[in-house]
């Protein structure tokens, strides 16, 4: 090959890549964000009750998940607590999900499947409340908002082993 000195500095196998990313205005940043973390970060203002959720669930969800949440064309959302170590485990929101935050995050972004992103924050709180109640985790008179949802402790909270978690050295 040519002697290194013959290689012009403006031409090489690699040069510093361009920097073409456009800064995102702070306002746009907050607006686009819908991630909800287990500690409640990301939860919006608003509130909703188990009773409100029951009505919404029948109107918007029951057609696919069944009137009692036990599943239909879409999967079951209710039941199965205590079944995980059995031969016939039932994995549901109540039996399996480690965090209530996931319920808010997921319903807001993805449900109902035919109209994702259509629910208001109050409605998502209400639906989350009803599903947690149907799973025996919240009482019938519960109302959820950012603080109370973050405080819910799910039955299977400790049920997961993070195998390749980058925060821990591999075993």
């Amino acid at each position, binding site marked *: 090959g040519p002697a290194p000195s013959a290689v012009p500095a403006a031409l090489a196998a690699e040069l510093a*890549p361009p920097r073409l990313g456009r800064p995102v205005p702070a306002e746009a940043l907050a607006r686009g964000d819908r991630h909800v973390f287990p500690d409640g970060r990301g939860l919006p203002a608003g509130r909703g009750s188990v009773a409100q959720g029951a009505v919404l669930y029948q109107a918007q969800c029951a057609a696919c998940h069944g009137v009692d949440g036990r599943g239909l064309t879409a999967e079951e959302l209710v039941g199965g607590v205590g079944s995980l170590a059995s031969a016939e485990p039932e994995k549901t929101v109540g039996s399996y999900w480690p965090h209530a935050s996931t319920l808010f*995050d997921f319903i807001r972004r993805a449900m109902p499947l035919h109209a994702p992103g259509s629910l208001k924050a109050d409605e998502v709180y209400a639906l989350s409340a009803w599903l947690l109640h149907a799973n025996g985790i919240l009482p019938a008179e519960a109302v959820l908002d950012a603080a109370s949802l973050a405080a819910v402790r799910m039955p299977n909270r400790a049920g997961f082993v993070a195998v390749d978690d980058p925060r821990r050295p591999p075993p």
Partner: protein
Amino acid sequence: LASAPAALAQGPGEAGEDLPPWMRSPGAGFSVYGQPGPQAQRVLRRPGANRAAPGNGVAWTPLEQLEGFLTPSGLHFERHHNGVPAIDPAVHTLRIDGAVRRPLDWRLADLLRYPQRSHLGFIECGGNSNAGWNEEPIQRPVGSFHGLISTSEWTGVPLRLLLDEAGVDAQATPWVIAEGADAFAMQASLPLAKLRADGLLALWQNGEPIRPEQGYPMRLILPGWEGVTQVKWLRRLTLSAEPLMARNETSKYTELQPDGRARQFTWAIGVKSLLTTPSHGQRLDARGTYQLSGLAWSGAGRIRKVEVSADGGRRWAEAALDGPVLPRCTTRFRAAWRWDGQPAVLQSRATDETGAVQPSRAALLAARGRNGYFHYHAIVSWGVDEEGAVRHVYV
């Protein structure tokens, strides 16, 4: 040796009278985008969708109808949770935000100006082969229960470049939350270290722009990792100290163990192989020599060796690897077998360059129980009966 064709052998009739019709009149003209011919149209993906939600489900790659190690883009398996979005590439952006020095947006046109790299490799759904956990061996063609794996050349921007431009702190925020621009707004919490090591923001699939159902205009590629992490229609990467605990990394894509606890954040595909010829549903016509052909792959690197057995795993012979043997890519293996007309059980067993050996089904079940659902990668067995019928069996 026979003598060369005799002179004057032909009479005075038309020269073409014995020719097939397609040699006697001009064929079809040129086309701007080629398609399989009518005779090959039966080689198709096999969709299986939720009847209440047509974009929710899978379409299987028909593995037993294919040869070689690549998958034509039109037959790449599909897995969508809420359909294939029709994204306008002039509007779509990739954003890197969260715990970064400079939250940034890139348009497709910007990304084309960055250095590109290719990865020729497989994508396998973490739920592929999950019928293997069933009590009874499922009676389906191999593509219809192992066909959530496909192999393509993915080309795009090394993610390291974009992450570094935004300014990341790998110690403080080891997680990146990826989000898709589909109607499911797919999420995955992923280690920054993997994205920086060999993650690609793929813009091209097998040379052309990525197909819509594979993530057009851009897709996260994480060589060797399960498909759900390789977020399609990628719109956002959010740096974080903690994982999100999204629905698809808690409720799904976690593996329930016999003790009731579940393995989470299991991303690399285990070493795996299967015979595609012969395979379930095929038939051996008569005693004699049969060519065995199959695929082997591992998320940890290259395939080092594939062995085959005709007696359910008692004795093994080494198969030939039909190169190139590439890391985190399917490798075609081949062997030959003389069938004596007796019942037999055909198997293959792969070993990768880390020394990992594909487990027997019994060993996998002993380690993981029966309800793990994901990451099934045990040895696959095809029983041959006295009539030559080939069926999926357990041994």
